[in-house]
């Protein structure tokens, strides 16, 4: 439905930012995430940053999956 890629903000001005995806860079719009700071990660869709990735929540998700994966079978 909508390709979205995590990208790190390396520079920003009022309406655009330069983002880095594992070493490839691109200029994207940041009108939807005006509060974004350099160093944060965003999800980019069709040239616009759509959302800032919340590191804490990402970490919690991973922890949750680890727990499920490592849980012993109930029986």
């Amino acid at each position, binding site marked *: 439905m*909508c*390709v979205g890629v995590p990208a790190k903000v390396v520079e920003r001005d009022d309406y655009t930012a330069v983002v880095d995806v594992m070493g*490839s860079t691109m200029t994207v719009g940041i009108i939807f995430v005006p509060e974004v700071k350099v160093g944060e990660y965003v999800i980019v869709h069709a040239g616009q940053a759509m959302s800032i990735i919340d590191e804490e929540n990402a970490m919690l998700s991973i922890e949750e999956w680890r727990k499920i994966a490592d849980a012993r079978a109930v029986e």
Partner: protein
Amino acid sequence: MKNQRISLAHGDGGELAHNLIQDVFVQAFGHNDQARFDSAIIDAPSARLAVTTDSFVVKPIFFPGGNIGKIAIAGTVNDLAVSGAVPMYLTAAFIIEEGFKINDLKEIVRTMASEAEKANVRVIAGDTKVVERGSIDGLYINTTGVGFVDPDRTVNPEHIETGDSIIISGTIGDHGVAILGARGELGIKSDVNSDCAALNGLIDSILKNVDGVRIMRDPTRGGLATTLVEIAEDFQVTMEIVEEQIPIQKQVQGACDILGYDPLYLANEGKVIIIVKKENEAKVLELLKQHELGRDARVIGHITGKGKGHLHLKTGLGSTRRLNRLSGMMLPRIC
């Protein structure tokens, strides 16, 4: 004038054409004895010849890691080398758009000469045509290559058998992403260099020292997946490659993620796929890794059976799926 440019008169066979050949081509390639006749006459070290031809129309003409001239030499040398031949002679034909900068042409031809020297091949015949502005995009080059087959060191695709190892000489998709970045059309920038390079030295060290090499191919247009599908179909074998083993530079993966491309289908210009019998896998890897162009070599999979001619990819989850050749062209997509 600082920026001298190619005019139609440079292609008419007269004075200007003569000067161009002297200043640009003879300067770089030297004037061989073979070139005193209308065709080059050469000695053959073996009775079996390998001949290949390729036309180069890459856009842009200059890109990170090379230019059209470098690919024109490397591409044809590689086609000879992967066939098991020793590349020796090349011809080069140039179709140039009126208005092309002579300095750019000089740089391209110099690159060709230095790549030819590195690859230990000689450019022994050539041709130049100039066409009206607008009828082509800058410069096209055709090269034809002649190599000789040493009967003692050949590849034997008919010996392919279950268990044989599939090796790639390095990271995939570098050329594709370098060109995408250089075109700048899609806004993506990367510091990835094209991998374009002549591989005959590398291949020579393998063929000289290892037997049991079944087949070699260079995965250019269509990428790794398309080339492997072709081998699978040509020789009716089924093969499996392992996703996690395939070497991909981070920047290449990043560019692919943004644009929705698959690196398995991106072009390479300096990589070789080697299928070799399992026992000699380690030896091939060792030789590849000693060479600058083979440092990132990996075993990426094996021949798993005969008959069907299918290529499978084992995913990180452990399940497999079939890979097909590239259909149509890759386009950036939103979904």
